[in-house]
């Protein structure tokens, strides 16, 4: 009864207290474009231009969008090193993220299903969880034999705890009735696991993955800034160190784009796994 959302009209966040006119909306391509959204983006770019031109001392060093695009065209579009940074960063994200899911999902399931395991392991997880992944960098560098492994370890830590928590919550939320029903119909534990527990966990895994991929990018970039010599994060950092603002911005935009693409990939996978969600 409390806190349920039932929207009769799904296109509306809350029922308006103002009238709905009887006119039906036109659905030409003109109306499909999010004009207001585009306006605010244009406004942002305009603000950027204005600040750089007239903003005074503080903003002097910042290039305009035009300058950034030009620099990109000149220095980076055809630069193999630049595209290699993409690959390197994506590789790290790939290894770290996949490892975190492969280890984290079973751990979450064990934590949720086996009581004793939970009692022993969960307190340790709770203790380690609040430590920001980046705080692990020095230790990671000491511990792992290669720099690459240390960065991948950091990339792993971020999404690892997220997926463990999400899967653990997901297991706890499985309706006992489903389990009882299966048992009373004579299902064996292996079957229950494959056909009931795992499918029920797909939403939690999806949420964990989406949150995790965003965190992963944050982490990769910072890890690269601190401890590596290749990658998109490193590129951005080098721009800063060499006072080349265009490089910094190119780096930022590239990172944003890369993060966006990964999120798209994860969301796509999520939609495929859960076709029943509108």
């Amino acid at each position: 009864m409390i806190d349920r959302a039932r929207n009769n009209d799904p296109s509306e966040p809350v029922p308006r207290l103002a009238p709905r006119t009887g006119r039906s909306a036109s659905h030409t391509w003109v109306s499909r474009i999010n004009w207001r959204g585009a306006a605010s983006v244009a406004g942002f770019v305009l603000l950027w231009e204005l600040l750089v031109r007239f903003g005074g001392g503080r903003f002097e060093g910042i290039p305009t969008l035009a300058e950034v695009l030009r620099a990109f065209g000149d220095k980076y579009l055809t630069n193999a090193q630049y595209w290699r940074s993409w690959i390197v960063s994506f590789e790290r994200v790939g290894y770290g993220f996949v490892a975190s899911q492969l280890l984290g999902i079973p751990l979450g399931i064990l934590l949720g299903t086996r009581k004793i395991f939970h009692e022993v392991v969960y307190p340790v997880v709770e203790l380690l969880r609040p430590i920001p992944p980046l705080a692990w960098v020095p230790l990671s560098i000491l511990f792992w034999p290669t720099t690459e492994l240390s960065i991948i370890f950091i990339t792993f830590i971020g999404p690892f705890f997220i997926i463990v928590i999400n899967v653990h919550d997901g297991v706890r939320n499985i309706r006992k009735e489903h389990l009882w029903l299966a048992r009373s119909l004579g299902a064996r534990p292996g079957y229950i696991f494959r056909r009931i527990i795992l499918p029920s966990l797909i939403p939690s895994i999806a949420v964990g993955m989406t949150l995790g991929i965003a965190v992963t990018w944050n982490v990769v970039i910072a890890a690269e800034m601190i401890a590596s010599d290749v990658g998109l994060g490193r590129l951005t950092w080098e721009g800063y160190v060499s006072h080349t603002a265009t490089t910094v911005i190119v780096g930022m935009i590239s990172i944003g784009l890369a993060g966006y693409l990964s999120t798209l990939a994860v969301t796509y996978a999520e939609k495929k796994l859960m076709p029943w969600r509108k």
Partner: protein
Amino acid sequence: MRNRQFWMMWVGYLGAVGLWYASVKWLPIGSFRRLPDPFTVITEWLSPNPKYGISIFTHPYYLHILYSTYRATAAFLLATLLGVPLGICMGWSRHFHRYATSLLGLLRPVPPLAWVPLAILIFSGVESAVIFVTFLVAFFATTLNTVVGVKSIDPDYFRASACLGASRKDILFDVIIPGALPNIFTGLQIAMGAAWFSLAAGEMIAAQYGLGFLIMESYNLVQFPTIVIAMATLGMVGFLSSALIRMLGNRLMRWREQSLGFAG
């Protein structure tokens, strides 16, 4: 006679410590030896006269904690003061939502840490730059969760207050804020966690003082036990701040507590 849960917890802790110790002392891979072992760390931490100058008895330790806490709190408060009202506007008004979503969607995928160099250029001081980046992360988390909170309010509550004669201002305070409060607090907790996350990074990259800075410095000065001390402290402070927020939320939303106690 404590219950089993209590003992199992300690089995877990000891097991973890044991694993740590074992991997430092006994594993064949050379690099693992470089890690400080548990006993060194603990004795250093609790020693009145620590070898590397940081323990619970030294005052620089608390100085670093204070710096980090100040930055995190400042960023968090700013994010809340801006994010919650913005989230409410976005959740309530469809027009506003369309304006704001695209802008936010554009800025959000950029990892906050990528902002650090730019922020340092714009905000002439490193201090402000670090707080800005931390603020950004907390801001997104708060705003998004507030929007979800407002949108999740059952439309019937709006209708009920309308037919009972509420003005728009009344609806804001009677329906929207209390209705969104649970989600707002979830958002605040996430924001706090995210704030610590970026703060650590920001401090490690470019700051003086602070726990993140301490971690990097001890690494550079080859003071390895201190690294672990700083990490553990960071974890604890982060945990405490989230717990504080959760407790505040429980106090403000005592009506929820009631419903759990009487689970129907």
